[in-house]
């Protein structure tokens, strides 16, 4: 049997030093950076890619944008793995603040959800309000699951939460919807854009925010808006949540404050409002700060609807 010699020990030492140095290289980050967990609809529309350079230039801070669903974003925030969240699920946002995980919730842009589907509208829901449309979708889906299908995000994202609220408003328990048959398809992965692509391939209906829909329509979708109404229940508000530095002392509050100021500044709000309007044939996001009164009112209305 062989024994460890000095040389072998020396090699072991070299390995340990190598690992330690690699780890420290990772921590020696030249620039200050903050981590932002964000809903996929904001990154799928390219908004972050557009805004990032403006922020980085002005403040000399690198934005680490982590595109995930709203569900997992809350988990990152709870654990303190990110400094700030940008999400769209009002009920959970308020709860998140109430539980002390975030110190502030700042709504900064909004748009509306819409129900999109195949151009021939096989369930004949065009012209209905969203509650009746969902009722009819379920009925027709059960009746003829080959023609009428609905693709759900199924991932706990803000859009998924909204979809559940719509089923509830239509008078259904979500569990029964999930078990109602093959017409109801849960994708569970890939974000809003991927879900639109799947729905388009399957000739199915789905719920989407207008921003992502407009961007993906340009890339080629066999889907058209079926229900498009600017009612409180279809309101979609994106908010910034600042992770509580008392729970997680490493949160860079100073930089996060700059980030909040940046996103809510008139200048950037105007940029957001103009973003994509020419390219995609419609406004993707509507600023909250400028003329925020009506939006704030609508949101309060939305809150009542949810209850």
């Amino acid at each position: 049997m062989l024994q460890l010699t000095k040389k072998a020990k020396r090699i072991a030492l070299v390995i340990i030093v190598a690992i330690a140095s690699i780890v420290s290289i990772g921590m020696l980050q030249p620039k200050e950076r903050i981590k932002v967990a964000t809903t996929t609809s904001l990154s799928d529309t390219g908004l972050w890619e557009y805004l990032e350079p403006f922020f980085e230039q002005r403040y000399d801070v690198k934005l680490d944008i982590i595109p995930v669903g709203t569900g997992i974003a809350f988990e990152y925030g709870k654990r303190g793995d990110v400094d700030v969240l940008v999400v769209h699920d009002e009920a959970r946002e308020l709860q998140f603040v109430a539980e002390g995980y975030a110190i502030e919730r700042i709504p900064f842009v909004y748009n509306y959800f819409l129900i999109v589907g195949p151009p021939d509208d096989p369930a004949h829901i065009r012209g209905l309000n969203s509650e009746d449309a969902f009722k009819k979708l379920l009925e027709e889906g059960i009746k003829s699951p080959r023609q009428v299908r609905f693709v759900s995000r199924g991932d706990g994202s803000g859009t998924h939460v909204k979809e559940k609220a719509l089923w509830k408003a239509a008078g259904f328990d979500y569990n029964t919807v999930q078990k109602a048959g093959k017409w109801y398809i849960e994708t569970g992965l890939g974000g809003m854009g991927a879900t639109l692509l799947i729905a388009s391939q399957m000739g199915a209906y789905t719920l989407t925010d207008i921003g992502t829909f407009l961007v993906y329509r340009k890339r080629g979708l066999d889907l058209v808006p079926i229900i498009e109404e600017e009612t409180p229940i279809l309101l979609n508000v994106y908010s910034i949540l600042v992770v509580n530095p008392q729970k997680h002392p490493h949160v860079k509050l100073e930089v996060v404050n700059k980030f909040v100021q940046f996103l809510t500044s008139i200048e950037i709000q105007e940029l957001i409002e103009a973003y994509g309007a020419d390219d995609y044939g419609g406004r993707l996001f509507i600023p909250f700060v400028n003329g925020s009164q009506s939006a704030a009112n609508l949101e309060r209305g939305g809150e009542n609807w949810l209850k």
Partner: protein
Amino acid sequence: MAEIERGVIQAVHLLVSLDREVIEISARSLWISGISCLLSSLICLPLASLIHFHNFRGKRVLINIIQTFFSLPTVLVGLFVFVLFSRTGPLGELGILFTPTAMVIGQVILVSPLLLGLTISALSGVSREVVDTAISLGADSFQVIWLVLKEARYAVLAAVIMGFGRAISEVGCAIMVGGNIKGFTRTITTAISLETSKGELELSIALGIILLLVALIINVALNRLQQR
């Protein structure tokens, strides 16, 4: 299928025009997987030798366990590394989640069983006489290990290449612990995943082709090295 054709054309275009982002992403993939593979080799080659040269109780069981870990799902490693380095986790203080460092650690965990198991197999192929002769000539254990590794170098190199292949091609762990941050932790595979979800199929196919090209260059280089 027209996407594939357009993807190939786009790959050529991206390569010829030296697209900055593509080069940056490819270099990052290569760097992260290369470092992972190197670190894993530094750990596993000596460790494999130790296991090979020692007879102890449970050796077969240990080898079975190592081989079982060949099937380690990448997302499971990702989840493990995430929980480990998450701020509320045991190593959260380091603050390395969503950095390339975390990705390297994940890939080392992913690749190590493969390197370990395949190196042990490679060493088993070396005749016992070589060892006996070396010992009788007064070689110390380090020299013996070095000699045997050299004897088995073809099979060992094949193991390293395989490990590198597993590292550069995985996406589950990279996306979970790296976060797919543009310009920081985005690699070829996580970019493919993102671009596909965006419906940019041609770009995804082009990136896939570039990944294979990178792998080809690495393999040719390593094989050259081996033939010397």
